[in-house]
């Protein structure tokens, strides 16, 4: 078969998982490897990661230590590999693949050591949400966050001899007698390139930005219509499409990592920080619908907002709450580095004023006026606010069981609201793999020469991203890439 060029391994996707696979190939074997990245720059979703998941790591072993900040609260502990695995099984209601979960958990600590070898310094090992007791202490926070990690990894790939081709989207897989033998791609100048390969690693980040696939696969109705894109990822399901075209079995496809975000604003903005708080949340009928302390888990919050028929939630505050957030005690719940816990939002009022013309925020001197501004039924909303304030005064939320500490009344004018929308960060799973990260067909037989890694590989999730094990997406991306590469080396070298 004729090719324009041949490599031993082709990694499709230049994010954390693709580069990890390529780096491993280049540094642990004599196999030739290239990365095909469809965008101008590598990085993928990994550049937005705030932390990396691992158990029994050298960083965990070194803590708590007087030189390190953030000693573990009483009762908290760093999990074992077994606890790590079991949490994937439990949270997914046994939809997780034990082979995959074990492969990841038991090899996660090496990812931390590799990154440290590349120059990453970890500032802390913690959890994501301050008030989420279910979380495991697996969240390794790197200095410089995801972008810095990806910069270092890319430099390491280049120095190790990996050929990285950007603006080079892979378009289809080439097979011969049921075996993957290459990839067709379009290079930066639009030339079609036939690239021979003995192994191909699919690392394209899932389908979170492909609304046709979101509509087809997500269990959340209308999310494809109601979604707001808060980070500029472009994961359009290329790997899933290519895998399916050669007989891959798609399994547990549909889970999405969704985050709530103020419409038209960034995750780290003050107005989103305020809207994200466990204030009084109402839907477009003016009705309350949940225990707003769900904000402690952004994954559950995302689902909660997305499950509204129109994907819109109004986060209602009064003047006292805005003052508290802007210059008082600050945030009651955090969102990693996007919304630091117990931090004020000094520009909140200005951001609210700026958002009002856009329809992303609302302000009125009366509850009825706020209802009118939001477009909800005034009588319904007024009754909801009154009942909520009664719960606040009593210190007990009989309707939705929100913890007392989050019960802040809506009483002092002026009144505000932000419009929160569901934002898909990344899809979670899809291509069924085995414990070697080989893509499998409907009979669970590996398709020769084909691997899937990162968030387009099935194996960890059920219907929702598992925030009980924070850092899973990023940790799995890097660990899966490395393990797939090692299996390739074992079969080819």
């Amino acid at each position: 078969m004729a090719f324009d060029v041949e490599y031993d391994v082709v990694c499709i996707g230049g994010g954390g998982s693709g580069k990890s696979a390529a780096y491993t190939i280049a540094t642990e074997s004599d196999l030739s490897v290239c990365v095909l990245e469809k965008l101008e720059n590598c990085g993928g979703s990994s550049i937005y990661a705030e932390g990396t998941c691992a158990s029994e790591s050298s960083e965990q072993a070194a803590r708590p230590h007087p030189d390190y900040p953030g000693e573990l609260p009483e009762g908290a502990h760093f999990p074992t590999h077994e606890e790590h695995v079991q949490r994937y099984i439990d949270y997914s209601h046994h939809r997780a693949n034990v082979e995959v979960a074990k492969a990841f958990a038991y090899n996660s600590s090496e990812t931390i050591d590799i990154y440290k070898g590349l120059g990453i310094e970890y500032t802390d090992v913690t959890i994501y949400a301050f008030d989420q007791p279910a979380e495991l202490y697996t969240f390794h926070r790197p200095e410089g966050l995801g972008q810095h990690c990806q910069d270092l990894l890319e430099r390491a790939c280049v120095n190790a001899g990996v050929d990285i081709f950007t603006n080079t989207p892979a378009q289809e897989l080439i097979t011969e007698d049921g075996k993957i033998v290459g990839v067709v791609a379009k290079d930066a100048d639009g030339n079609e390139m036939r690239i021979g390969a003995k192994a191909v690693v699919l690392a394209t980040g899932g389908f979170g930005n492909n609304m046709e696939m979101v509509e087809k696969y997500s269990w959340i109705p209308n999310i494809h219509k109601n979604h707001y894109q808060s980070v500029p990822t472009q994961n359009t399901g290329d790997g899933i499409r290519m895998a399916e075209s050669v007989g891959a079995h798609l399994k547990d496809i549909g889970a999405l990592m969704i985050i709530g975000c103020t419409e038209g604003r960034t995750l780290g903005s003050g107005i989103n920080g305020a809207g994200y708080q466990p204030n009084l949340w109402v839907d477009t009928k003016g009705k309350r619908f949940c225990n707003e302390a769900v904000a402690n888990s952004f994954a559950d919050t995302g689902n909660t907002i997305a499950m509204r028929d129109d994907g819109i939630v109004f986060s209602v505050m009064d003047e006292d709450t805005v003052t508290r957030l802007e210059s008082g005690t600050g945030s009651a719940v955090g969102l990693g580095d996007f919304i630091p816990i117990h931090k004020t939002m000094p520009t909140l009022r200005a951001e609210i004023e700026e958002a009002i013309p856009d329809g992303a925020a609302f302000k009125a001197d009366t509850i009825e006026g706020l209802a009118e501004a939001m477009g909800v039924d005034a009588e319904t909303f007024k009754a909801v606010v009154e009942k909520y304030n009664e719960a606040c005064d009593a210190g007990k939320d009989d309707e939705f069981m929100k913890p007392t500490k989050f019960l802040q009344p809506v009483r002092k004018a002026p009144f505000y609201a932000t419009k929160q929308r569901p934002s898909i960060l990344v899809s979670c799973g899809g291509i069924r793999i085995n414990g070697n990260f080989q893509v499998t067909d409907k009979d669970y037989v590996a398709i020769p020469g084909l691997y899937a890694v990162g968030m387009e590989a099935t194996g960890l999730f059920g219907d929702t991203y598992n925030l009980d094990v924070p850092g899973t997406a990023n940790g799995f991306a890097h660990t899966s890439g490395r393990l797939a590469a090692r299996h390739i080396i074992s079969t080819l070298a």
Partner: protein
Amino acid sequence: MKTAVVFKWCKDPQDARVSADGAVSWPGVKLSPTEDDPAAMDVARGVSAEEDIVGVTIGDGKPEWAAARGAASTVVVEDAFGGPDGTAAARAIAAAVKSAGDVDVVAIGDSDWDRGVVSALVGALGWKAYANVTAAQAEGDDVRLTIKTPAGNRIVLAKPPMVVAAQALSQEANVPGMKQTLAARKKPVAKESVASLGVAAGVGTSAGTRLPEGDAAIIFDGSDPSNAVAQLMDALRGEGVL
């Protein structure tokens, strides 16, 4: 008019690993094209036709960079390491330029990754040199250079031979695609060594390329706010601020 475009002649400072004791190491780091190398290539293309452009590089890393951008051939001095001694690298580059024969213009990125190399190269060649060049065009036997100065652009019409230190104004606009890059690997590469070119040894070592940005920060322990404020006031008075 023949142009030698020098590329990939030092290491990317971002790849340096600095440990707590100040020691610098470069584990597994290869030489990299600098951020100004594309500008040097633009100068070469402005001055010469493709068949008259030769790429010159040293050390490890990929030698096809200039060929992928239009150079007809490449000379690489494989064992001329871009280490602390910029003069050694400069002498190797100068020798490689001479081995390419009848070069009229040497274009090199005016990079602050290692400023000493450019100056030493000019000295090794003994040619006149122009720095901060943002554009170049051949005009008959002369070269029209656009030089960026604080007061604006200056246009110079100069006769070869010369060294042109080019400065990039933005990121490279058209990175060669895969086809172009693979084709470049088939272009001729003359592999030389320090010995084969008779390159003289360097004259010293380089401890750095720039002075520190400013005075080190003073960090106050904030566990006792009153004490921290007192220390801050003392420091401000000591610096002459108050």
